[in-house]
């Protein structure tokens, strides 16, 4: 069982950081909605508040790790330029996709949107975490603030969904390959 270093970092970027960040949205949306619309009967202990803060901080860290590992680790491999005369483009995903009209739009639409829109998520979630930590349960009172917080959480979720979905498809049609081989297990 082997994996190349490029494969490994692509998995860390997409599954280790990105998917974990995506999974965390359900909990964040539910808790923030509960926090902001719970009414006077909603009680939040100091421990609950601390856990929510830690949860949101973890989401913010995951969001930034996802986009930074994407742009500075995986993306340079994706857009690598093949030497003149190269006919096997399997190590050059961008060129591989653009080499055929049947796959070019995966780059022109999918990758071009994914690589930019993903950055809206960490910006939005940093704001959401800051406001939740600063105002806590009191964000339920001014309707405008809770509308913005919940709206930006949903926007971050959509941006992450777009980036994650296109990332999965792109890795299917033109996976990032190469680098040195890491042997995980030897078969019999």
């Amino acid at each position, binding site marked *: 069982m082997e994996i190349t270093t490029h494969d490994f970092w692509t998995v860390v970027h997409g599954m280790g950081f990105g998917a974990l960040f995506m999974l965390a949205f359900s909990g964040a949306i539910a808790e923030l909605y509960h926090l902001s619309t719970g009414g006077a009967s909603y009680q939040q202990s100091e421990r609950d508040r601390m856990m929510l803060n830690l949860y949101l901080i973890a989401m913010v860290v995951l969001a930034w790790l996802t*986009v930074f590992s994407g*742009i*500075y680790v995986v*993306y*340079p491999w994706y*857009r690598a330029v093949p030497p003149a005369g190269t006919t096997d483009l399997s190590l050059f995903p961008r060129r591989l996709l653009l080499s055929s009209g049947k796959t070019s739009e995966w780059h*022109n*639409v999918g990758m*071009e*949107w994914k*690589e*930019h*829109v993903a*950055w*809206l998520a960490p*910006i*939005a979630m*940093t*704001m959401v975490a*800051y*406001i939740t930590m*600063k*105002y806590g349960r*009191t*964000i*339920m*009172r*001014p*309707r*405008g*603030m809770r*509308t*913005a*917080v919940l*709206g*930006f959480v949903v*926007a971050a979720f*959509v*941006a992450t969904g777009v980036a994650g979905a296109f990332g999965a498809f792109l890795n299917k049609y033109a996976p990032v390959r190469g680098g040195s081989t890491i042997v995980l297990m030897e078969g019999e």
Partner: protein
Amino acid sequence: MSMPSTTDEIPNGSGAAAILGAGIGCGAIGILAFWGDASAGMNKALNIYNPSGALSGVTTFGIIIWLIAWFVLDRMWRGKTVEMMKVNVTSFALLAVGFLLTFPPFMDLLQGK
């Protein structure tokens, strides 16, 4: 005797600054992405780390604009109460700019491609 505190009594300025700052950051990412796509010169200027191309400049400058906007707005509004409706409308409009101007078919439409 102190009365129970409600947020109506708590200045919302810092929160509003963070919200509008995030909107400005998202809008900046969209505008820079569109500008880099539409102009070869701007695309070259945004290429501050060659292996990642213009995306490196779009995101770096987008983050810088976001943080500066947040800092300046927070300095202006801290301890004050601001009209949240205007802040929200502007922030969501800028967020929509961020989504639309990063969507390639919309970019192409604006450029008449």
